[in-house]
């Protein structure tokens, strides 16, 4: 077997006759995995994993492997277009980049002049390594409004970790945790920021014990030593219950607590309000199991928590994040090898600096939409989407006249999709940059063709907090597509920001790297750069917080007039908080379980990926299905008090009979009408976006826990089978 070697580049080249290969860094999700791209006749011929990559060690996912099918997709937009007819009329005309960018620039300057720069809202969707350029152009323009997923995805982890312990604590798989608690997450299928499934899987193979907190039976839950099948939306109560056990049984790290935490006494008082009897009643999890999990986590060293977005898309968003950090902290796992490490990024111009947040004036900062309400979010430059829709539709507190969405499809991904659609129909001018003409792009005035990761040079992962940067290298050019970075660099010159930008974007990469005295060309020759690896840094210098301590009692939240201690709030729409509604809508609806091949709204037109998962699926327990007359594979209607959508039923014992679990972000690119079926199965049509139901600190929309009814679709209702 000596002759076999993983990713044998020389032999692949020889056997298949490839002309060349390029090592690069995939970005089909947030980024992270090193890849080898083989090229023949100037086109990508094959994608393989790069075993030298320190993050995924050569392993890949379905999306990475199918990247070339995205790049060369026949429906892909490959030149700028402008709309001719009314919105969503699908009448477009090809235009030049100059015309497209000049038109956008002219609109930005006009609205700035007439309504103030805050009337121009830039936006992106999930993290695609374009955050820094988008914030840069907005901040220099003077617009405090960049609309992202940050209110309920990763932004809360960043915001709450900075105020608690200085930075985002990263599960340290390379030092093999002995216990892993996977909380509302399945890293083997999903794409949580910072993480890949491979190191988690390897840590389990090294013998780590596994605790899984999830209302659904995932494969990790089936493999777990302890599976806590909680009532959706009760994570905060469960975490408080576990902390209660750890405090009562004195399983915490006494030295850490005494020397390095702030607010232990009030924290204990708060935790005492959550005895296990109460927690069992709230969460449906038997108290013996909560105790077992708490003991296992607190007494197995080192231990790490694999967390993700699910806990953030709830009314308890910020407190959920903080509570999980408290579990990491008081058990002594913060900054411990194999625990949760506060990693150091390489010495580069970081995203905050590159994003030019310092250039936004105080006056403009004060105008940030929703800033007075969601004060923690606002401090971290995050806004709540509904505040933007309201500013468009009601012109309150001031009019928003222009949207520029870059890699974002809010018609599918933001709560209350019908309101989103109305706002996008109403807004005076909208530009979109994307790979395809999505349901959101159909409402745009101008659509710009965005480059995939195969078509750009970039300092990959420099926004993440796992401590690595890796070169993403341009392999191909498709049509006139440009990277988000290049198009914004060009646009910035056209709106008078030239002095803060570069002649070409390679010089921006040089700028990012300059603190290390290297250029892009130098970095291009390297595999990766890693920041300094150091543990227990707090013992020397404390934590980067106002008290220099790990803040159980947040002095920053206190100043912002929030409860400085975490608490459990009942979801605004639950059997407990809305018993009358529950009589009419007798199931708890959870949303958003991830599927291989898709990344939110993406990839439903990629043959090899869509083949893996053809239809939107709603999971329902066989007993509930029998009661509602639903059979396997039936198209069913899921209905809340706000609307109805159709998905296909899958009967499973992995769901509590009181719960149904629907998928998110579905549209149907194969439908050629301009709506592309955005209203058919789009779960966000069912979801409320009232600000009262959002997390008070971050503005996270409560999209994961609702009340619904479910029933078979009537035959005459049509079917797209």
């Amino acid at each position, binding site marked *: *077997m000596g*002759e*076999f070697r*993983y*990713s*044998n580049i020389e*032999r*692949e080249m020889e*056997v298949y006759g490839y002309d060349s290969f390029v090592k690069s860094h995939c970005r089909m999700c947030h980024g992270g995995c090193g890849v080898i791209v083989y090229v023949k006749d100037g*086109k*990508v*011929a*094959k*994608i*393989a*994993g790069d*075993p030298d990559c320190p993050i*995924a*060690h*050569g*392993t*890949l*996912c*379905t999306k990475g*492997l*199918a990247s*070339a*099918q995205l790049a*060369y997709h*026949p429906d892909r937009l490959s030149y700028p277009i402008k709309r001719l007819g009314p919105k969503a009329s699908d009448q477009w005309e090809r235009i030049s980049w100059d015309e497209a960018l000049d038109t956008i620039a002219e609109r930005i300057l006009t609205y700035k002049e007439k309504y103030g720069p805050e009337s121009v809202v830039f936006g992106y969707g999930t993290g695609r390594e374009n955050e820094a350029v988008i914030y840069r152009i907005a901040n220099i323009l003077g617009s405090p409004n960049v609309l992202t997923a940050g209110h309920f995805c990763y932004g809360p982890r960043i915001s709450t970790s900075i105020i608690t312990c200085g930075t985002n604590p990263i599960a340290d798989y390379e030092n093999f945790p002995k216990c892993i608690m996977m909380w509302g997450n399945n890293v*083997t*299928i999903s794409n949580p920021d910072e993480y*890949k*499934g*491979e190191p988690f*899987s*390897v840590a*389990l*193979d*090294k*013998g780590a014990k596994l605790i899984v907190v999830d209302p659904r*039976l*995932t*494969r*990790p*839950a*089936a*493999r777990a030593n302890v599976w806590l099948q909680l009532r959706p939306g009760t994570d905060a109560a469960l975490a408080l219950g576990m902390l209660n056990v750890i405090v009562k049984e004195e399983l915490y790290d006494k030295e850490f607590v005494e020397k390095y935490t702030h607010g232990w006494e009030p924290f204990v008082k708060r935790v005492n309000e959550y005895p296990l009897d109460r927690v069992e009643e709230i969460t449906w999890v038997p108290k013996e199991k909560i105790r077992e999990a708490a003991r296992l986590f607190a007494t197995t060293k080192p231990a790490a928590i694999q967390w993700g977005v699910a806990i953030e898309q709830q009314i308890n968003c910020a407190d959920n994040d903080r509570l999980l950090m408290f579990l990491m902290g008081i058990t002594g796992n913060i900054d411990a090898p194999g625990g949760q490490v506060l990693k150091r990024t390489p010495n580069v111009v970081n995203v905050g600096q590159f994003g030019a947040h310092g250039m936004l004036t105080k006056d403009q900062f004060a105008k940030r939409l929703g800033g007075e309400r969601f004060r923690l979010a606002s401090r971290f430059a995050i806004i709540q989407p509904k505040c933007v829709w309201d500013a468009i539709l009601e012109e309150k507190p001031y009019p928003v006249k222009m949207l520029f969405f870059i890699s974002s499809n809010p018609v599918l991904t933001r709560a209350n999709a019908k309101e989103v659609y109305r706002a996008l129909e109403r807004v005076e001018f909208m530009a979109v940059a994307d790979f395809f003409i999505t349901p959101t792009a159909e409402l745009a005035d101008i659509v710009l063709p965005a480059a995939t990761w195969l078509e750009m040079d970039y300092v990959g992962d420099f926004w993440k907090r796992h401590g690595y940067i890796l070169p993403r290298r341009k392999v191909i050019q498709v049509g006139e597509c440009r990277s988000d970075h290049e198009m914004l660099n060009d646009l910035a010159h056209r709106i008078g920001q030239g002095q803060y930008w570069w002649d070409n974007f390679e010089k921006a990469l040089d700028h990012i790297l300059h603190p290390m005295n290297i250029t892009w060309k130098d970095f291009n020759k390297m595999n990766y750069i890693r920041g300094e690896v150091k543990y227990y840094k707090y013992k020397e210098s404390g934590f980067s917080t106002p008290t220099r301590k790990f803040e159980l009692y947040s002095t920053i939240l206190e100043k912002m007039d929030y409860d400085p201690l975490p608490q459990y709030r009942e979801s605004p729409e639950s059997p407990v908080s809305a018993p009358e509604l529950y009589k009419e809508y007798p199931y708890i609806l959870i949303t958003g379980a991830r599927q*291989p*091949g898709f990344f939110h709204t993406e990839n439903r037109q990629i*043959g*090899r*990926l869509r*083949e*893996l998962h053809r239809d939107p699926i709603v999971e329902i327990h066989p007993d509930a299905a029998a009661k509602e007359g639903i059979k396997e594979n039936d198209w069913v209607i899921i209905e809340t008090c706000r609307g109805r959508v159709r998905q296909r039923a899958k009967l*499973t*014992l*992995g769901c509590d009979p009181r719960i149904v679990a629907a998928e998110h972000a579905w549209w149907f690119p194969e439908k050629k009408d301009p709506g592309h079926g955005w209203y058919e199965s789009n779960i966000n049509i069912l979801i409320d976006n009232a600000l009262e139901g959002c997390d008070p600190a971050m503005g996270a929309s409560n999209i994961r826990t609702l009340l619904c009814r479910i029933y078979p679709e009537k035959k005459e209702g049509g079917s797209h089978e």
Partner: protein
Amino acid sequence: MNKYALIIEEFACWGCKTCEVACKQEFNPIDAENGIKYLSVWGDGPKLMNGKLDFIWRVNVCKHCDNPPCAQVCPVEAIMKREDGIVVLDSVKCTGCQLCIDECPYHAISFDDEKKIAAKCNLCHHRVDKGLYPACADNICLAHCIYFGDPSEIEQKILEKRKLRGGWGEIIPKVLVNSRG
């Protein structure tokens, strides 16, 4: 003569389906239709096992049987077991009679509607013969649960992993996709 086997430790599989797409990439040009599925990942369960709810991913692919019934039934000898253990279906010889499809106890042979012939995993023998791992086994799997090589060495590796896991996996049938030369 080397003996080759493809062994998938299903206990470790996370259902990410990367192997399915790696297989597709190997056999279909980028701009082609999806083509035949040689390998498929499917969810077994959730179901009650010994009072506990269990759920496992299964990977179905040609098992390259010791005495392949598909080869015995083929009227034109299009299916041959090689000395190294790989069972190859020769697409040139195949007449599309589909007897092998009915005969395979694992439902691991498909019918290619376009070419009107049977199709199955040939264990990437075109790669193996050049010293390259089969596409699905070339380190793409995040669970590292797809093994290619000498079957006894692989079984040893899996046993060592089980020991490290503290016995995890023993409640699951031992080798789930196994081929022996």
